[in-house]
């Protein structure tokens, strides 16, 4: 199967998987029997923060929410995960874009060089 996914989709799935909490939620969602409030108890962060992570995964199509009585159960979206496999193949695209941006940057000519230590910039 030749999957066709857009560059935006690659960025999106890549970014969704770039967060440790979201990867953990994703692996727990494999079992598909934890509600959002139960998930929220597992992490040292607010319910709202966990809800936000679930929302990112849901929007990326990696998990789905379904009602189970009064709970909303989070489970893995198999189609979304197939896309994640395609993402592996598309690390290629990540680098293609990075090098593309390098070319754009060099086309702008010489940029002022910032020699300040980074610690000073973010202190």
């Amino acid at each position, binding site marked *: 199967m030749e999957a066709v996914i857009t560059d*935006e989709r690659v*960025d*999106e799935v*890549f*970014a969704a*998987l*770039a*967060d*440790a*909490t979201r*990867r953990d939620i*994703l*692996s727990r969602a*494999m*079992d*598909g029997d934890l509600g959002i409030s139960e998930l929220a108890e597992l992490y040292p962060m607010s319910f709202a923060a966990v809800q*936000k992570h679930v929302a*990112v995964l849901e929007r990326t199509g990696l998990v789905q929410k379904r009602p189970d009585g009064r709970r909303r159960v989070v489970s*893995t979206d*198999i189609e979304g*995960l197939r896309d*994640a*496999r395609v993402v*592996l*193949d598309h*690390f*290629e695209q*990540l*680098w*293609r*874009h*990075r*090098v*593309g*941006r*390098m*070319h*754009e*940057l*060099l086309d702008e000519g*010489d*940029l002022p*060089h*910032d020699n300040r230590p*980074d*610690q000073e910039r*973010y202190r």
Partner: protein
Amino acid sequence: MSNIQITKDLASATLVVTSEFAASPERVWQLWADPRQLERWWGPESYPATVVDHDLRPGGHVSYFMTGPEGDQPKGYWHVIEVDPPNRLVLEDGFADDAGQPNDDLPVSRSEVVIEPVDRTTTRMTITSTYDTAAALEQLLAMGMEEGLRSAMGQIDALLAET
């Protein structure tokens, strides 16, 4: 962007990216060595990077975060292995947890960057990246596939039981 060649070896999870620039090796090196230039190209367009620490010496540490459209800020790091300006840089890059500690679960990659003059006006950059924890993602994926299959089988059983 036609001046970018990429070869991919799935078996060894290795990606080789080659591109030629109309610039000197020193200028191309600055793309990596100057944090302000690095953050202009490292993150995806929807997730621009901000470099926090940038110690480009063997054993040095580079840390950054990216900022997404929702304000989420995934963190990443480089562990610098070899540095030979302006020709060679070897690093490991991976994701970090909220506290900035390396998260070894996945995916960590090792990249070797070689910058060399082709002629007086052209510089070739070759990046060889190996994704050694691609296998971990595959495993995650395989678990999902298996689970999906199992629940699909469960649904068939349930349907058969109804009739």
